[in-house]
């Protein structure tokens, strides 16, 4: 390819037509060598130099073009290249420059050649001589006709101006260092390339680490977000598609019913005119209105629902009053009129004869009947009485004689009871005549009476006992047939009790003046305590019966005694002394108490007795030392208990037993040796009593050797070293790999993951698999987030 190009170049040059030398005159070097001397003279000057350059140019071209493509081939014929390379590198310099300034230099070159010619010819003309060629003509030895062309000759002909541009003459230029051998060069290349690649690929590090540490990886990692195009997001284009649609559209358009522009503009204007603040205000206003309306409506509904007549009455009154206020308080005198009016109204309203029964009576003319008439009259009278009562209340005289009023009522009731009954019976079978109504009435009446009586008694005697009793039963009476479990109920009860007690105390204080009351009180209290003590005693007895005699020590009294039992032999003298003093004091106290008790009909104070017990228990030994008399009964008790315990554990030498047991287990679990030598085996008859040398001994491995026991140096412990094979199944043989310690592993198993033990969220989080893939979805290789 390259050679071909080189050949073609001559014709190309013709077209260019820039050379001063006739191309046809050019002769290759080989031709030149073949030529005669005569011919040579004519051609010599041109060929000798020019051809060289042409050739060189060709060579260079070949090289420069081949370089990019021949890389792969270079590898194959590396050796050839290497030999060529050195020549190439020398010529390269020349070639580069000649390429650059080719156009100019070709002309210059021509001129220099002509100059050279002229300069070379001159000596030829001056003297001619015959030159005999002694050497044979070959490729190493050219016929020069005695004229030797040296570089200096050629340099002399060169213009100084031109020489500036010539590279060859540049004296400062240095030779470029020879390139490294290809193998070494490639090695360097690879090393650098490897570093670069490593750097490049290390950019993935973060991503990879993140993915490795992720608790959950969902594949595909970056799923495409799919938008679900629902009907709401679907926007219809207002272009009619079907025939019907187009028809209708046309009709609408023709009749000018459809004018999209107008509609659109109207809306746009309405919105556009308003500023955002204005808009805000308007919406706020609207909202407020709506809210108010809504509330009003609600209120109206609520009021409408109320059925109470009284409420409506009050409402009406209010309304009227308001109206009056609005109308103005012009007539002051109207007040009386108003009263009158109201009275009339009430009268008419309270008209007894307006009841259904009365109406019917009147209607049927039965009112003229004597009995009926009297009944009607009675009704009227009753109404009148009630009215009177009402008026009395209205006057605001809620005086002390309220009670008396009620009493009166009841007194009257009692009197009128029979009459009432009679009336009721006569009234017929209404609701009031029914049994339960009657009963209820009876009950309420009874209650009222009771209350009344109580109050009366209170007034007379000032005895609050009964009151107390009644109040203490409050809860019980309220919750008939029900037990009260709630703490609140009992708390309430306690509160009530407290209050009652306070009240009682106050009352007592008030009555303290009178001796009789004092006496009474004392008596009362004593009686109370007596009663209490009795119950307590009985309880105690029961307890004593129930409790195991071995356990009496740990029951109530001992608990209290614990406070005192801190004094031992080891305790300090000071504390001992203090204890002694305390004991003496208590004894004295005790004696006093005893006396007092004897005086006071031997009333026993529980606390006091307890104290005695505790103190007596506190320092048995000291007491025994100091006072032989002691407190007889109590001491006896203690001795008894001790004896009992002793008796119970008599002959129990626990420690020794334990030692024996330990020895036994050590022996049992140790390795054993069994002598399997058969007596008489291998002996001559009449067994000699010599000890045999060869004993057959079988060693049986025990659980653990004597010296290797864990409890070897532990005194009071036997450690079981038998391996339970059933447990083995549930034990991991060692700490498994990712865990570093046993504790860590155990911790990982501690919290259960099941739904029964955790919340749903935790459960789901803990059971989430690390890798989640989606079926039928391609998992693409990781895509770099940094690219």
């Amino acid at each position: 390819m390259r050679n071909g190009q080189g050949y073609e170049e001559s014709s190309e040059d013709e077209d260019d037509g820039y050379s001063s030398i006739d191309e046809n005159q050019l002769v290759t070097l080989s031709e030149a060598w073949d030529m005669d001397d005569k011919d040579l003279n004519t051609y010599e000057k041109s060929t000798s130099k020019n051809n060289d350059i042409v050739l060189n140019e060709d060579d260079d071209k070949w090289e420069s073009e081949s370089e990019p493509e021949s890389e792969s081939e270079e590898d194959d014929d590396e050796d050839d290249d290497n030999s060529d390379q050195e020549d190439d590198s020398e010529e390269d310099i020349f070639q580069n420059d000649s390429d650059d300034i080719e156009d100019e230099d070709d002309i210059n070159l021509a001129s220099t050649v002509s100059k050279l010619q002229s300069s070379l010819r001159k000596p030829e003309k001056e003297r001619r001589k015959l030159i005999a060629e002694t050497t044979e003509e070959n490729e190493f030895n050219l016929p020069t006709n005695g004229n030797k062309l040296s570089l200096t000759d050629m340099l002399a002909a060169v213009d100084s101006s031109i020489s500036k541009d010539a590279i060859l003459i540049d004296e400062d230029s240095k030779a470029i260092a020879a390139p490294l051998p290809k193998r070494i060069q490639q090695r360097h290349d690879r090393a650098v390339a490897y570093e670069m690649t490593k750097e490049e690929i290390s950019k993935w590090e973060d991503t990879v680490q993140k993915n490795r540490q992720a608790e959950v990886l969902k594949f595909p990692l970056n799923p495409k977000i799919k938008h679900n195009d629902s009907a709401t997001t679907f926007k219809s284009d207002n272009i009619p598609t079907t025939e019907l649609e187009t028809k209708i559209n046309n009709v609408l358009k023709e009749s000018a019913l459809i004018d999209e522009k107008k509609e659109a503009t109207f809306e746009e204007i309405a919105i556009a005119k308003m500023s955002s603040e204005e808009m805000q205000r308007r919406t706020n206003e609207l909202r407020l209105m709506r809210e108010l309306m809504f509330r009003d409506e609600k209120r109206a509904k609520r009021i409408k629902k109320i059925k109470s007549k009284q409420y409506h009455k009050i409402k009406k009154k209010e309304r009227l009053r308001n109206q009056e206020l609005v109308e103005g308080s012009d007539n002051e005198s109207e007040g009386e009129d108003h009263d009158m009016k109201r009275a009339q109204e009430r009268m008419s309203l309270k008209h007894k004869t307006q009841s259904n029964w009365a109406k019917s009576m009147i209607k049927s003319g039965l009112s003229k009947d004597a009995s009926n008439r009297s009944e009607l009259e009675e009704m009227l009278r009753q109404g009148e009485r009630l009215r009177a009562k009402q008026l009395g209340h209205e006057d605001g005289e809620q005086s002390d004689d309220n009670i008396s009023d009620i009493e009166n009522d009841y007194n009257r009731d009692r009197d009128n009871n029979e009459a009432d009954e009679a009336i009721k019976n006569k009234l017929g079978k209404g609701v009031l005549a029914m049994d339960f109504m009657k009963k209820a009435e009876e009950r309420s009446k009874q209650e009222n009476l009771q209350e009344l009586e109580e109050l009366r008694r209170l007034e007379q005697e000032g005895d609050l006992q009964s009151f107390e009793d009644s109040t203490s039963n409050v809860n019980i009476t309220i919750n008939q047939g029900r037990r009260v479990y709630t703490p609140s109920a009992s708390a309430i009860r306690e509160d009530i009790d407290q209050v009652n007690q306070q009240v009682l105390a106050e009352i007592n204080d008030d009555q303290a003046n009178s001796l009789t009351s004092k006496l009474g009180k004392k008596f009362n209290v004593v009686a109370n305590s007596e009663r209490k003590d009795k119950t307590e005693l009985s309880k105690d007895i029961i307890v004593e019966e129930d409790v195991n005699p071995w356990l009496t020590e740990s029951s109530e009294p001992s608990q209290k005694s614990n406070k005192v039992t801190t004094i031992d032999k080891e305790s300090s003298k000071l504390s001992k002394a203090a204890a002694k003093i305390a004991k003496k004091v208590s004894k004295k106290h005790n004696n006093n108490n005893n006396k007092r008790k004897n005086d006071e009909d031997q009333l026993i104070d529980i606390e006091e007795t307890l104290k005695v017990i505790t103190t007596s228990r506190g320092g048995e030994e000291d007491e025994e030392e100091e006072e032989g008399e002691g407190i007889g009964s109590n001491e006896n008790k203690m001795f008894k208990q001790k004896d009992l315990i002793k008796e119970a554990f008599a002959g129990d030498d626990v420690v020794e037993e334990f030692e024996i047991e330990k020895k036994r287990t050590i022996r049992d679990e140790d390795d054993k040796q069994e002598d399997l030598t058969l007596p008489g085996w291998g002996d001559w008859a009449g067994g000699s009593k010599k000890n045999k040398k060869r004993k057959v001994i079988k060693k049986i491995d025990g659980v653990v050797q004597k010296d290797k026991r864990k409890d070897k140096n532990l005194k009071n412990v036997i450690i079981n070293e038998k391996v339970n094979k059933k447990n083995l199944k549930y034990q991991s043989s060692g700490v498994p790999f990712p865990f570093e310690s046993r504790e860590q592993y155990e911790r990982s198993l501690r919290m259960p993951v099941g739904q029964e033990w955790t919340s749903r969220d935790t459960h789901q989080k803990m059971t989430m698999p690390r890798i989640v893939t989606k079926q039928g979805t391609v998992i693409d290789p990781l895509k770099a987030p940094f690219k």
Partner: protein
Amino acid sequence: MKIKTISRSADQYVPVRNTQESSLPRNLNPALHPFERAREYTKAVTATKLERMFAQPFIGQLGDGHRDGVYCIAKNFGTTNQVASGSGDGIIKYWDMTSRQETVTFKAHYGLVTGLSVTPGKTHMLSCGDDKYIKLWSVNYNEFDAGFGEEDVYDKKSQGLVKTFLGEHAFKGLDHHFNEDIFVTGGLSIQLWDMNRSKYVSDLSWGADNINTVKFNKTETNIIASAGSDNSIVLYDIRTNTAIQKVVTNLRTNCISWNPMEAFNFASGSDDHNAYLWDMRNLNKSLNVYKDHVAGIMDIDFSPTGEELVTGSYDKTIRIFRSREGHSRDIYHTKRMQRIFCVKYTTDARYILSGSDDTNVRIWRANSSDRAGIKSSRQRAKMEYDNALKERFKHMPEIKRISRHRHVPIVIKKANEIKRVELESLKKRQENDRKHSRAGSKPYVPERQKHIRGTAIKEDK
């Protein structure tokens, strides 16, 4: 007194739709759920047993397979259900996994099909063979008359053939760039081809020996790894157009697979029965050693999730490894399956394909007890709970025993035993050597470095 009654609205427990499950209210009173550890342990044991009971790894084979051993499988990275396979008699087939039938068949080469790859984007596949040809095939069977059977393949050779590249030597191994029109071939030299040129673009060879497999990195897409007959693994970068690093191992590396989730990691399967995980930035040691096979590993493939590896071996078994563990979590084998030459995960990481000497392409489940059917949410929750329990109690002896238990062909069991004895004796011998030589003169070599002879570019340690 105000009485609080237990009241439940029907809205809470009556399902809205009849397809929805009714919810079961739970009582979380701890008194009602005692012995939580014991109960969960029992559940874990049961779950493990059930997993083993339901383990059915084999699904079926693709069509009727080939007429000769299957030596290469290539997956279409764009879909989940399409793969190509090439066999020893020069036939390549393109399969639809859903119907398990072949869609097209070509008589591609004379002799072995040594490399196969499905191009991204357009559905073409590239094949290379011992006959010095690389051929580009169209798998859009609508474009040509696809209605031919296997008998016709031998007559209508040119159908579906899009392009042919003529090489200078027989090819071994071919892989396509993940998204550009470039592919690389192995053989006497490793060459980079442009789809639009008839000659290769560049020759990346380093060293004189044959290249057996070439693999493009699927994430950092300009990096290639190759394994050669000179026991070397070589890395190349097509941006700088050079080889970059070479590591020489004790025995030949048969296969390479890049981790699709970790750009710098790749795994290699070696003739020394082990697979290795490498970090391409430091080849002085491998990151992990996967042991268990009893013969050379012929093919290895990373799961698309990057969490698992599948290896096919000359010992007629497939093993699945977790990428961070050293021993396989499962072993697949059948009586009829012969030497395995290619294994691949499907692109959804649910199935495994294997091609073996017995001319069949088999489909396996990646998780042997998995089922593909749609699961109700309760079923799924149960499964997840079971898996969590299994994971939690996996170190308990009973569960460990059950979950590890596999029936293995007697040949492999025997081979395993023999191998163990051999290794032990070797170890013993080395230990003796060490004992009787100057201290420190025979240092311990970590297992992860034992197989490495050296690297071309020394790392600064």
